[in-house]
């Protein structure tokens, strides 16, 4: 069972060694030493170094002798009692980077965070995560982190920096100047409080800048409800979901939570016969769109009128009259009927940042009685608080020299602000410029002072993502570098000696404890810190009534759009998102769920348009002066819609990110005060060059093979086997000369529900993190040598202009008759008595025969020395500095690092299986169903992956394998896979 400590390491240090206070660098020192040792170490492998707690294994072969190298074992001076050498401990924390929110549990092994899991205690995410959350741990060990404070570009001590800043602040204050704290959305009440205090002491303004803005929604709600807020949505209560380009499974508001909710109504296991219906209207192909039951291509310019038309249809159905008739490109009548028939169980959302559209959406939801059912206005969603108008005002003020001091916290406008030149010139006019970055970025160098912030895994924090949904963040490691948490800096500059932890505690004691149960506050605090979650059940007062007039007014204003011009959509990918994490190799190498491309952004063009312009794949074009980008022909893309991913084209970042792709933020425009992520009229210039984009999948058709099996809800209800009939046929033909092997005790199996999988890729990153899967870089991916142990195959079905998208996560199938095992000459891969297809890396001589003979092609070969673990030196293949000592701290000590020339593959996370078995043994009990959870299953936000013991007939996995929808991939080969798939069911019924 999971062990979470209610005290952070930091506290422990304080308890156990009072001198820790006056030796703050103690642990950091320790890590540095480890790094130095590492640099010295020649033959000692990194795994050894990580294998034993707090042991620095330095080693040098004794000169002129073939003796084994002397391995040193260096214990800590004082070993904190909670930390058992070689045993992981878990700390609840919270991941929030201004865009993504996810309560997490951090796995700390030997003093180092090595893995992030979702926190099951949260009723919002229920243990789900997404790719970025999973990858966040690698950010802690980013080589491009600022390591100490800087003043005027030179390293300085905190004292110097603080003195300078404080004196300047006072100067500004005395001359009655104004300062600005520019930050991304802050959902931490304590942080807010700190900033407010700071701004009361030094008069100024706190301005929120969200790269992905929802200010239009807030404004719309202001008009509809008289209150600018974001409500919380309940996709789980919605039977019909209509989304106008709202990528709620990928990037819209809180995708992890939404995916959880969404997947609940997509599951048909255990005899469930009901499932939600999802209609998606969009121009570019998004993750969410590709999962929809019905996807309607809609030119962005026509979105508004379509919404209006839908609104109109619904008004008609609701019997309201005097509405505006407007023709629509899509058949909104049908949609309206569906929605209206499911009044109170329907939900309509739009991704647009145009207030009028959002107003009409509000109107629609009102007509559908969504408010109070699928939309909760009493619980507000606290992300995306930015008000774009204010932001523009601030830029203007800066340029007008009205701002004397600016504090940049958790923002990087010099890279991602749409009119970044304006910002930069403005910034130069500001007297006091203080940046508080974590990673190297474009903005910080423009500041006088760089006061590097902690990584979130080093900091204390709290969060209120929704009204009454609190969570805490605590350090899982002592600061690696000489950094300081931003809030701490603010406090310092206010002249307070309070440390932020106590500040938070105080805040909670004063504001939240009252709502808590009748424990002492310490008890309350401890338990909350242990869970990381506190859901007080607080609600906002709903002292407002819905007012339809604004919506109607908006509808009246709608004019027909023009679909003949090229429209450009800029969007955040599920990988690098807005570029904050661009320097994370795991994310850079993560194939996009739709295009399967990585390491670049590109212009997605519809096949039809490509035909017309004679464009072929990888031809380079220039859209609206983004710069030279390759074309990717995207089936299902709306005829005249182009789309380019945000988050690329970093100029000042680490090695992995710098110069990858082009920066598309310039395409975001302010239309009546709100950021627009769509440009209805762009020009595209063909440059005639070609530029290859690395894709992990280059063939997109199933060639009519029964690989991903699917059916429609109607057929399924009629006959649960539908779509899977062929299986019976296949089973009949399976004959064997040899008797089957008996699996006594355990027979591990995995079932993947194709209906729940949204292709979000969280599993891929989780797997990489858990199993030390190397990052190979673009060149190698181009050569089809990526190493991911689990991949999500994506196929297009039907017409290339409007294809249907199906996805299938494929990992080692652990066949009981594994073709790979027979052919290995050295017995490096064999079958365990628990049905695992074992791979003994150290026995492998790399004939690649197993790889050839694997029908699923899930085996991966170390073509080069990707890990720097080779006996021969100087032959590493490491374009992303993953082998640097700092990065290596993320490696999982329980998993061998694979050498050059060996095959590797999914092991069903055998290290976890073994760990849990041992746990059961020591606790003298049987293993329970659900004890063992592989990384992919744990990360999955939609619980599409189920793992367990097939021998245990009551286990969930056994039930899944009994399900009529269950089938095995390429079963006709009689490989007897241990991985089952549940047929995909599309709700096409109306």
């Amino acid at each position, binding site marked *: 069972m999971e062990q979470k400590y209610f005290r952070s390491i930091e506290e422990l240090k304080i308890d156990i060694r009072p001198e820790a206070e006056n030796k703050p660098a103690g642990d950091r020192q320790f890590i540095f030493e480890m790094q130095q040792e590492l640099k010295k170490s020649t033959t000692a492998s990194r795994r050894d170094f990580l294998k034993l707690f707090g042991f620095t294994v330095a080693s040098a072969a004794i000169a002129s002798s073939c003796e084994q190298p002397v391995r040193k074992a260096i214990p800590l001076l004082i070993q904190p009692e909670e930390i058992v050498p070689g045993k992981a401990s878990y700390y609840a924390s919270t991941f929030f980077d201004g865009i993504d929110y996810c309560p997490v549990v951090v796995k700390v092994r030997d003093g180092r965070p090595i893995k992030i899991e979702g926190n099951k205690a949260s009723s919002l995410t229920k243990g789900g995560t997404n790719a970025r959350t999973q990858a966040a741990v690698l950010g802690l060990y980013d080589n491009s982190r600022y390591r100490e404070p800087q003043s005027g570009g030179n390293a300085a001590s905190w004292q110097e920096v603080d003195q300078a800043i404080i004196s300047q602040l006072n100067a500004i204050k005395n001359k009655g100047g104004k300062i600005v704290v520019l930050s991304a959305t802050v959902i931490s009440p304590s942080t807010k409080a700190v900033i407010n205090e700071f701004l009361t002491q030094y008069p100024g303004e706190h301005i929120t800048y969200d790269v992905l803005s929802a200010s239009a929604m807030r404004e719309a709600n202001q008009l509809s409800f008289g209150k600018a807020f974001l409500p919380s949505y309940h996709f789980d209560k919605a039977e019909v979901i209509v989304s106008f380009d709202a990528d709620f499974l990928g990037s819209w508001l809180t995708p992890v939570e939404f995916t959880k909710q969404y997947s609940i109504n997509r599951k048909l296991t255990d005899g469930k016969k009901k499932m939600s219906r999802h209609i998606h209207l969009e121009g570019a192909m998004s993750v969410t769109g590709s999962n929809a039951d019905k996807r309607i291509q809609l030119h962005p310019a026509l979105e508004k009128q379509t919404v209006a038309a839908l609104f109109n249809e619904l008004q008609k159905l609701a019997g309201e009259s005097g509405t505006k008739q407007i023709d629509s490109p899509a058949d909104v009548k049908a949609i309206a009927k569906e929605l209206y028939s499911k009044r109170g169980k329907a939900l309509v959302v739009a991704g647009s940042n145009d207030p009028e559209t959002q107003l009409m959406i509000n109107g629609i939801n009102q007509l559908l009685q969504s408010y109070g059912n699928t939309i909760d206005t009493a619980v507000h969603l606290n992300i995306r608080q930015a008000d774009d108008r204010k932001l523009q005002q601030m830029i203007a003020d800066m340029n007008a020299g009205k701002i004397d001091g600016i504090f940049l916290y958790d923002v990087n406008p010099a890279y991602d602000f749409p009119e970044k030149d304006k910002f930069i010139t403005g910034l130069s006019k500001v007297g006091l410029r203080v940046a508080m970055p974590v990673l190297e970025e474009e903005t910080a160098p423009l500041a006088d002072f760089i006061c590097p912030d902690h990584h979130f895994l080093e900091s204390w924090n709290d969060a209120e993502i929704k009204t009454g949904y609190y969570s805490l963040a605590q350090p899982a490691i002592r600061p690696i570098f000489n950094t300081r948490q931003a809030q701490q800096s603010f406090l310092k500059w206010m002249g307070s000696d309070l440390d932020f932890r106590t500040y938070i505690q105080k805040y909670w004691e004063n504001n939240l404890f009252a709502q808590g149960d009748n424990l002492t506050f310490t008890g309350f605090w401890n338990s909350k810190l242990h869970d990381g979650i506190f859901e007080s059940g607080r609600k906002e007062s709903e002292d407002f009534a819905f007012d339809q007039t604004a919506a109607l007014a908006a509808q009246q204003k709608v004019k027909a759009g023009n679909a003949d011009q090229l429209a450009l959509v800029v969007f955040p990918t599920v990988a690098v998102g807005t570029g904050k994490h661009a320097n994370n190799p795991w994310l850079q190498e993560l194939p996009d769920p739709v295009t399967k491309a990585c390491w670049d952004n590109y212009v997605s063009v519809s096949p039809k348009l490509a035909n017309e312009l004679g464009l072929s794949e990888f031809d380079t074009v220039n859209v609206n002066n983004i710069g030279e980008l390759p074309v990717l022909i995207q089936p299902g893309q709306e005829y005249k819609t182009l789309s380019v991913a945000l988050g690329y084209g970093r100029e000042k970042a680490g090695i992995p990110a710098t110069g990858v792709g082009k920066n598309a933020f310039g395409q975001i425009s302010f239309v009546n005060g709100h950021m627009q992520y769509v440009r209805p009229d762009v020009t595209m210039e063909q440059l005639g060059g070609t530029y290859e984009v690395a894709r992990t999948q280059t063939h997109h058709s199933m060639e009519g093979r029964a690989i991903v099996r699917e059916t429609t809800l109607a057929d399924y209800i009629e006959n649960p086997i539908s779509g899977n009939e062929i299986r019976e046929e296949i089973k009949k033909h399976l004959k064997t000369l*040899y*008797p*089957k*092997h008996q699996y006594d005790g355990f027979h591990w199996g995995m079932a993947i529900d194709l209906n729940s999988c949204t292709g979000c890729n969280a599993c891929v990153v989780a797997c990489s993190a858990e199993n030390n899967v190397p990052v190979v870089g673009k060149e190698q991916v181009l050569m089809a040598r990526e190493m991911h142990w689990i991949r999500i195959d994506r196929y297009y079905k039907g017409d290339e202009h409007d294809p249907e998208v199906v996805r299938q996560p494929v990992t080692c199938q652990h*066949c*009981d*008759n*594994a*073709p*790979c*095992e*027979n052919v290995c000459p050295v*017995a490096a891969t*064999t*079958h*365990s*008595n628990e049905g695992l297809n074992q791979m003994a890396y150290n026995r492998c001589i790399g004939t690649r025969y197993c790889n050839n003979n694997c029908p699923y092609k899930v085996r991966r070969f170390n073509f080069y020395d990707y890990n720097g673990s080779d006996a021969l030196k100087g032959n590493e293949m490491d374009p992303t500095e993953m082998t640097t000592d700092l990065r290596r701290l993320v490696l999982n000590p329980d998993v061998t690092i694979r050498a050059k020339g060996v095959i590797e593959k999914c092991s069903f996370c055998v290290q976890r299986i073994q760990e849990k078995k041992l746990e059961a043994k020591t606790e003298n009990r049987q293993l329970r169903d659900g004890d063992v959870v592989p990384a992919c299953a744990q990360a999955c936000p939609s619980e599409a992956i189920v793992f367990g013991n097939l021998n245990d007939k009551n286990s969930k996995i056994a039930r899944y394998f009994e399900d009529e929808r269950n089938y095995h991939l390429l079963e006709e080969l009689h490989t*007897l896979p241990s991985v089952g798939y549940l047929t995909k069911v599309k709700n096409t019924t109306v």
Partner: protein
Amino acid sequence: MNKDYITAYYNDEEELLKAVRQLKDKGLEILDVLTPFPVHGLDKALRMRRSRLSMVAFWGGAVGAALGFLFQAWVFTKGYPLNFGGKPFFAIPSFMPVTFEMAVLFAAFSMVFAFLIYFKLGPGAKTVIHDERITDDRFLVVVGIRKESNYQEIEQALIATGAEGITHNV
């Protein structure tokens, strides 16, 4: 050859054959016949036994096969039984190729070594070269001389068979 002998050489295998037959009829003791290439019918003329080398080969092969098979069987059932792709541990068909190869290997080597050892041939083996031209175009008959037998008689007999030349070590 530690005893006295006369050697006679011929230039043509037919003559040699004739000669050998006659000498045999005369009951002379032919110690050896040396030829540049295998002369057909010569072994009959010399009344040689059938070779037993093939038997050596057979038994060698048998042993090889047995070793090969048993070793594999032991490894897979006792030594370290491992489950390969769901195959049974004692998977006879899988053992066949190796068994066969071992059989051939042992057969071939046992026979060749038997041959070499039996005739004391081998790297750098010391043997009497009667005449450098034997390996070129000469056919040589070596007739042994017993104490009692008459030296001239034998010489005559040899000349009678049309020997081109005669030498002797007495």
